[in-house]
Structure formats: C-alpha cells, structure tokens
C-alpha cells in the first residue's frame, strides 16, 4: 500500500511507531500528485518546499516528545481559507495574486498541532457553485469518472481526498459545499454547527451560513480533524462559547437507543432511484446497528432553496464589495475615473456566477424590495428552524440523501443554473438552521458514481452524527474501494 493511501489515523499510528516519517509521507503524497494531478486538477497552488519543511519540523517535534494526532499529517486546504504567505484566490481572478499576511484561525490551530499544508485546492469562485465549474483556474474532475463533476463548491477538497492527493482536507459549507462534493466523490464530510469552527480567515461568501469543516477518507479521520479545528475564537463574534468535546469518543459500535428520523420531504419527486436505493440500504444498516427508525416531517423544506438564494446572495453582495481594486486584488490600469475603476476591475475580476449572485443580492436588499425578499426569506428561515426543533423532539438524528442525483457530466448544466440551484435542496436547510450535517458514503450508482448519505442532528450534536456515521461505515462493504486512476 502506498503511503498516500493512508488515512490520518493509520499514518499517525505509523508515525508514532517510527515506521515512517512525515517527510516520507509528504513526499509520497507529492509523487501521487505528480502522477495524477494532470487528470484530477484538484490543486490551485501547491506548497511543496514549505510543506516539506513543515514535515521535517513535525518529525523533529515527534522525536522531541509527545505530539498531537495531526502532527506530520499532510492536508489540503480549500483556497478560501487564508494561509499566511501562501496565495489565497477563492478561485477568482480578482484575487489571483493575493497573498494574505495572516493565517485563518483554523490554520493557526493546525500549525500548532504540526499538520503539514500541501497546498490550496480548487473551488467554485467565492464558493458559489455546486460542481466546481465556476473556478477561474479550471474545473477539477471527479476521480471516479473524470468527465463528471466532483461537486462543489469544495470540489478540490473532495477530489484531492478521493484521489489520495492528500490524507484529508478542509472545505467550507454554505449550502452543502462540503457534504455534496463529499457525496459525489465518495468521501466523508462534516459541516459543523454554525459557530463550532472559527470563521476568522475564511473569505466570506454568506457570513450567516458559512462554516469550515473536514473532508476525509473515513469517519475516524473526520472526527480527528474536527477535533483539531473546532473551538471558541475571540476573533469571531459568531463563534460559539460552548466547549467542544472529543469527537473520537463518539466512535463507538452500536446504536441502541438511537432514533433515526427519516424526513419524508427528502424522498420526494426528483430523487434519483439509485440514490434512493443506496440511501435506504444505508438506513437498513443503521437499523442493523440497533437504531430505531421514525418517519418525520420537515414541511418547509421546499422553501429552503428560495430563502437561501435570497439570503446568501444578499450577504455576498455586501461581503464582496471590498474587492474593489483599491487596496489589493485585481485592478484595471486604464480606468479614467473612480467609478470606471470599480466597474472595470470588478467586471474583469469576477466570473459570471459571482456577478449573477451579486446582482440578485443587491436587488433583494434594495429599498422597496427588502421586505418582500430579504425579510420574507429570514422568516422562512425561522420556520425551517422550527421544523428541525419539532423533528428533533422525535428523533436524535435525521438520515436522508445528500444530493438528489449523482454527479453530473461536466458542462451538462452550464446553461441551466436554476437546476443546479435546485440540486442543493437537501443540504441548504441545515445551513439555514445552523445545525450540523454530514455526508458519509453509502453506495454507488450503476455507472460507478459514489452516493452519500446525509445525517443531520441538533445544534452541537456533532458527536451523534459521528457515532451514527461510524456505525454505517463499519457495516458497509465498500469502504476500501478506490477510484481507478493513474
């Protein structure tokens, strides 16, 4: 077995035993990248020299004494998370040459634990998209089928994990951007509770929805990585003061006493039958593990997409105003007035989808429309929160599909953004309510595309998600299947 194929916990064991070094591990991952990156195109920026230095430092730290489980573990970071001294583009021309002079809080945490940063992975521009087709620097491919999308917006994060181009990665999730690519690439992904992980240093798309989370090869790794990045941060006012728990403790066998809710609205028309079959099979395995099943209802699910496509663009229209060409980022050099500078710099710097959402958001916040759009959407949000409160009074965790369809062909939906928006139907509600959600592999389509099962739980119930997902993973016969690449 190649080192790049290891999970975090396997590598950590070997590192602890002294069987391998982080330098060896990191070097092996880079040779894997050399081998297949041309096909996958997961990375925007590779961090070769510094990564090897970090690996050396990690090996030294390990020789010197006790280290954190993530010490010496090579990780890929979504290019929307600020990395000091390393280009951070958010997949956009407007930040093509932007190098932050500071680290995101999650990066500080990972560095303090000795993790190795392999580089920055691809994403839809400013995290706006569901197929990673909106990246200014190319579209990464699904490692299971190179002419299919890997999902989005954290497409590079999911593809890199699936293709063994890293041991695990960080993504961000605003409306499904971790869970959906995880599902399409057959990896594990967690969107934590809003406030569980600091947003400081995460380039904002929609501030009230964004959350950083792990993508990994198995559930144990997701727990390990979540342990490494969560916790209160005084630099993020929306960060939760609540203490975080040790999510590794949630990896217990057996689900007796656990009630799994099946939200009927998530199995409605439009659900691909192969997806439904795989998800229902996954639910059967949860029952095998001792869980009880209960049908529940989340009646306002169908309004989630509409509310989301008001709130997220509204916040984005304001969040992206800072990219004006005045202080940093792309700046048109021929502009002959201030307004001209703004117009040209932003026209050239932003891609179509970003422009589309800025326009929608600006419109929704405009005087005379605010009440009809933004305010109404906020009210829908409250109804969705209430739906969950009601559901979680009857069950501990919800099980459903992540995406109603498997990955589509690259370019297939280029002229139909609305159908792409609608494919986020099942992941958006968790962001609107701020609850944690998770995607865990549960099977494949007849054409060999991965299918994920979504778990959702109440605020700060990540441990419940991890325990449930772990039991599914233990009983699934596909865990060791790898995409045929290279």
């Amino acid at each position, binding site marked *: 077995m190649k080192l790049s194929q290891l999970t975090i916990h396997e590598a950590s064991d070997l590192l602890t035993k002294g069987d391998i070094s982080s330098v060896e591990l990191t070097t092996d991952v880079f040779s894997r990248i050399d081998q297949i990156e041309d096909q996958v195109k997961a990375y925007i920026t590779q961090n070769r020299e510094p990564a090897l230095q970090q690996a050396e430092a990690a090996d030294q730290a390990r020789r010197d004494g006790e280290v954190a489980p993530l010490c010496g573990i090579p990780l890929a970071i979504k290019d929307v998370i600020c990395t000091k001294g390393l280009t951070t583009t958010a997949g956009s021309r407007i930040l093509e040459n932007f190098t932050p002079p500071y680290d995101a809080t999650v990066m500080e945490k990972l560095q303090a634990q000795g993790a190795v940063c392999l580089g920055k992975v691809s994403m839809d521009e400013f995290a706006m998209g569901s197929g990673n087709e909106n990246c200014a620097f190319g579209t990464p491919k699904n490692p299971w089928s190179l002419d299919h999308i890997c999902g989005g917006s954290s497409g590079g994060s999911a593809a890199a994990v699936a293709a063994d181009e890293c041991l695990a990665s960080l993504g961000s999730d605003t409306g499904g951007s971790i869970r959906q690519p995880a599902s399409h690439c057959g990896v594990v992904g967690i969107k934590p509770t809003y406030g569980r992980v600091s947003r400081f240093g995460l*380039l904002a798309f929609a501030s009230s929805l964004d959350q950083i989370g792990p993508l990994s090869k198995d559930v144990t790794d997701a727990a390990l990585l979540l342990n490494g990045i969560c916790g209160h941060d005084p630099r993020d006012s929306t960060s939760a003061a609540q203490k975080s728990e040790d999510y590794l403790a949630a990896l217990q066998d057996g689900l007796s006493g656990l009630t799994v809710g099946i939200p009927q609205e998530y199995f409605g028309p439009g659900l691909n039958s192969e997806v439904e079959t795989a998800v229902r099979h996954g639910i059967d395995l949860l029952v095998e593990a001792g869980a009880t099943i209960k049908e529940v209802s989340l009646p306002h699910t169908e309004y989630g997409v509409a509310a989301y496509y008001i709130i997220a663009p509204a916040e984005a229209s*304001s969040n992206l105003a800072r*990219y004006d060409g005045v202080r940093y980022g792309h700046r048109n050099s021929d502009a002959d007035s201030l307004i001209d500078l703004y117009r040209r710099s932003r026209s050239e710097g932003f891609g179509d989808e970003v422009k589309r959402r800025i326009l929608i958001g600006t419109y929704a916040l405009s005087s005379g429309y605010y009440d009809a759009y933004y305010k109404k959407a906020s009210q829908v949000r409250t109804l969705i929160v209430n739906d969950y409160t009601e559901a979680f009074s009857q069950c501990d965790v919800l099980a459903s599909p992540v995406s109603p369809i498997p990955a589509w062909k690259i370019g297939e939906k280029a002229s139909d953004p609305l159908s792409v928006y609608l494919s986020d139907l099942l992941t958006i509600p968790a962001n609107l309510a701020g609850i944690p959600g998770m995607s865990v592999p549960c099977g494949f389509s007849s054409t060999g595309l991965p299918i994920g099962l979504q778990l959702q739980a109440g605020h700060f119930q990540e441990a419940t998600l991890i325990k449930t997902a772990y039991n599914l993973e233990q009983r699934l016969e596909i865990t060791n299947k790898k995409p045929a690449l290279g």
Partner: protein
Amino acid sequence: MEFEIVIGLEIHAQMKTKSKIFCNCTTEFGRPPNSNTCPVCLAMPGVLPVLNKQVVEFGIRLGLATNSQITRTNQFARKNYFYPDLPKGYQISQFDLPICEHGHVDIEVDGTSSRIGLTRIHMEEDAGKLVHDDSAPKSYVDLNRAGTPLLEIVSEPDIRSPEQAVAYLRKLHAIVTYLNICDGNMQEGSFRCDANISLRPMGQEELGTRTELKNMNSFRNVQRGLEYEVRRQRDILLDGGAVVQQTLLWDPDKNQTNAMRGKEEAHDYRYFPDPDLVPVVIDDEWIARVEESLPELPEQRCQRFQDKIGLSADAATILTSERALADYFEGAMAVYPNAKKLANWIMTEVMREMKGKEGMSIATFPVSPKDLGGLLAIMDKGTISGKIAKTVFEEMIASGKDSETIVKEKNLVQVSDEGEILQMVQEIIAANPDQVGQFKEGKTKLMGFFVGQLMKASKGKANPKMANQLFGKELKK
C-alpha cells in the same frame, strides 16, 4: 411673508476610546497615513469585526445624560456604498435598533428655554480620509480614521433659529466632554455636525423642502452657515422660487454655501443586519452600573458652583459651559480659594487672552490653573501689585514660567519699605514745586499725578497704598 425656520442637527461625536470600534488599532490622531491600521480595518479578505464594548458603555452614558431610552437588544447593520475611504464597501452602523431613542435636552437662548428632542443616538464606525493632490492629479487614501467609533446624535426638527442651533450644539458638546466620551475637538473633526434646514410660512404645518449643510467646523461657522442658508432660502421663496433639495458645503472663507458634487447623490444604502456581529444585549445591571459611575453633568456642576462655592448664576453658567473651563477654575481654586476673585480674573483676564486667538482654547492655555492660582495668591499677599500682576500674567503666557519665577527674575517684588518709598516721595515733591503749590491751594486731584510719578520712578513696584498715605502726610507739611 413671515417664515418659520426649521432646523435639525446630526452630530457625529468621535468616541475617546483607546482602540477602534471593531479592531485593536489605536485611535490616536496625527499619526503618519495608514499607520493605525490592521487587516480588520483595512478590510482584508476573511477578517471579522469584534465589538469594542467600551463604545456601548459610552452610548449608555450619553443616553442617560440626554434622557433617552436605552435599547435593550442592539443590532448592528451594514450601510452599503462604494467609496475609497470605506474599505469594506459598507459602514457598520445601526439602523432600526439604535442604542438610544426618544431623548431630549433643554437649551436657553436670550432667557427663553426650549426643549429639543433627540430622535436617536446610534453607534457606528468612522470612514477614512481622502487626500487629493489636484496638481498630479492623484488621490490618496488614509485609513487611520477608518473604524474610529462614533456616536451619531440625531435631533428632531425642533430647532427654530441659528442661535438655538448653536446653543443646542454647545449643550451636546458640554455633555459629551463632561461625560469624558469625546474630546470635543471641532477643528480635528472629533465633534462635527450637519444641519437640515427648511423654511415654511408661519403657521403652516407641512415642512418645506430642506437642504443639508455640511462642513461647519466651529460654533461660529455653524451660526454663520445657518444664517447664510436661511437667508438664501428666504430670498428664493420670496422670489417665488423653489428650494432644491441638495447637500451644501459651507465655505467659511468665501462666506457662502456651495452645492456638493459627487458622493452624495440619492443612495440606496441597502441596510441589513450585519451577520458578523451578534446582537448586544444591555441589561438593567449594566445600565445601573453606568448610571452609578456617571460623572457630574454641566447643569449639576453649575448648581454646585452657586450653592457650594457661592458664585453668581451668571458666573457659574459661564464657567461650567465647557468642562475644560470648569476644570481649570477648580484646578486654580485648589491653590487660591477666593472663588469670586478667581472667577472674575478668569472671566476677564483669561478669557480676554483667549479671545480672537486662532487655535487657543482653555485646554491649550499656556498658564496652568495652579500657576494662575499662584499669581493671585502672591497678589493677595502684597508681594506684587495688581498692576504688576497683569504684567506678570502676560509674561507667564509668553514664557510659560510661573509667577514667582518671573517676579524674581525681573525683580518685580512690590516695594513696601516705608523709608525707601518716603525717600522717593520727598524727591518727587522737591522736583515738582508748581504742582505742590497747586495741591496746597486745594487742587487735590493732583494726588493722582504724584502717585503716577512715583510709580514711574519705581517702575510700578511701589506699594500704591503706602505711596498714597505718605504723599498725604508729606504734602501737608
């Protein structure tokens, strides 16, 4: 036709916090451009604001001092517009839930008091500054001020004359400086105001078209700017014309208002709650704590100066009109407890010195309160005469030295030695036989002449009381 003037003021008071409202950068004035900045106030990608709670505390203080209702759940909102002095492309402000509402202050003009309502007071961040070099032509952005905390105080349109506007402004200025939440410096822009002005025919309910007047950076400019604008609007209306709603800049050099170009067109600010900041909840306990620590306010101090110190109502009002002045008075009183004499000296000599001098204020007055007290004390002791005291005072202003040093250096100690003065008296009598004759014939007014001669001879140092006595005695001989 008679018109009624309707004015409302918007005051921006910069808060005297050590650091900015959403980051740790210092608020210090006068540093090199862009040195008081960090990723947060430069609006770098991915950074987040964290509220400086002191600003909320200051807002509560001002609310309590202006009889306002304090909002319990405060929400920050984004005011969106593009301008290079606004790095985020939005200003973090408050919209539908400002920290204070429904307040009022009482003012007095020519003995008539009136109550001016305060619609709202809200917390927000200041923008940076643009520096234009027209010769290049280039514009530079200085973001030192970006993120400095402000309280915006919005009055009801209750003001009926430029005089009332100035009285209201002075009142708020006194309040914020007494509360120690703002340094009140209008030149540096830490206390600034915009005015909305309209006229309507006397007795008409409906408001006329208003204009907004900006750039009035002193009380005097507010008065002059408003007077000018009232005149301008009245002339238009009397001519049968219509006032155009617009923003005007006061030009103190040309003594006129000019329409502002560019930035201030009809804006849709697209306010919405800032998702990066959680609501700030103010509970009873917090309000009680602030109330307990509230410093003495102008009205209370004025009353105390009358009741406890024994000043007249007029003197107390003048001396408490500015916190710095009242502090000066009390600082000098610690050295020189004769309150009435001290008050008089400050209201005449000190204020005369400050009058008409650009940039001179009590805060920057070169004679410290302790030194002024010292001067009056040696005058009372008889070390120097009242006349010499004024010379010494001028010297103190010029040199910054204290009175005793100056008296010593310039040898100004009053001569109270009887023998020494007697000798001079006799010399003067001997030197002026004509005047002595006339005096003896009953022209007693000439006493002034003799004392004057003596003062001249002694360079003003002779004790005048003693000189009078001795001339009286000698001229009878």
